C-alpha cells in the first residue's frame, strides 16, 4: 500500500511517502491509523488527535470508515488551505 503525507502530517512523520505491507488487521482507514500509531513517535504525534487529520483514498476525499484494498494509495493531511 502506498502512503502519502502532506503538510504538518508529513513533518511529524518525517517523510513524504512510503510503501508498506499491511498486516491482516488493517481493513479500513481507521485500523490503518491504529497500525501506524504503533510505528513510532512521529506517527503517534501525527495521529494523536485523528479529528485533525483528513484522508484521501486513491485521490478521493473520504473518511476513516473507508474500506482499504491492497494497492490503494492512501494520503493523510490536515484540512486544506489553498486558494
Amino acid at each position, binding site marked *: 500500500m502506498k502512503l*502519502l503525507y*502532506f*503538510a*504538518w502530517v*508529513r513533518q511529524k512523520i518525517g517523510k513524504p511517502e512510503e510503501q508498506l505491507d499491511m498486516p491482516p488487521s488493517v481493513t479500513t482507514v481507521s485500523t490503518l491509523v491504529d497500525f501506524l500509531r504503533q510505528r513510532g513517535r512521529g506517527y503517534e504525534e501525527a495521529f494523536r488527535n485523528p479529528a485533525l487529520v483528513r484522508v*484521501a483514498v486513491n*485521490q478521493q*476525499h473520504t473518511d476513516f470508515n473507508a474500506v482499504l484494498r491492497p494497492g490503494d494509495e492512501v*494520503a493523510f*493531511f*490536515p*484540512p*486544506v*488551505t*489553498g*486558494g
Partner: protein
Amino acid sequence: MTEIRIQQADFEPGAEIAALEDSGGAAGAIATFIGMVRGDGGLISMTLDHYAGMCESEIAAHAMEARKRWPILALRIVHRTGKLAPGDRIVFVGVASAHRQAAFQAAEFLMDYLKTRAPFWKLEQRAGEETWVSARNEDDASIRRWQ
C-alpha cells in the same frame, strides 16, 4: 473550453483573460478572481504544498460540476505552488458566459470549492517561525450554500 494548471511559475492575468475572451463571440461576460499573498502580521513568505494529481482531478471535478450548474463558455483555473512573497499572485479563476450572473456565480462556486476541497496547504514564514495555516470555519460555511 476548460483549462486547469498547477504551476510554480507566475501567471499573466491579461493572457488568461484574453484566452477567455476568445470564445467565438458568444461570451457576454467574464468574471475573474485573483488571490494574492497578503503581507500581514510580518509575513516574509508563504510556501504552498500540494498533492500532485489529486489537485488536478479535484479541480477538474468541480469544473465539471460548475458546467452542469451554469452555461459556461470557457473556464480557466491556475493555482501556484512553492514559495511566494507578499503581493505575489496565488490563484486565478476566470469564467466566461453569456450573462454576468452565471459568470459571477460560477467563479465564486469554484473558489469556494478550491478553498475547501483542493489539496493545497499554506505554510507561512515569519521572523524565526513557520506556521501551517489553519482551515477557516467561514470557508466551510461558504461551501454549504452550494449544496
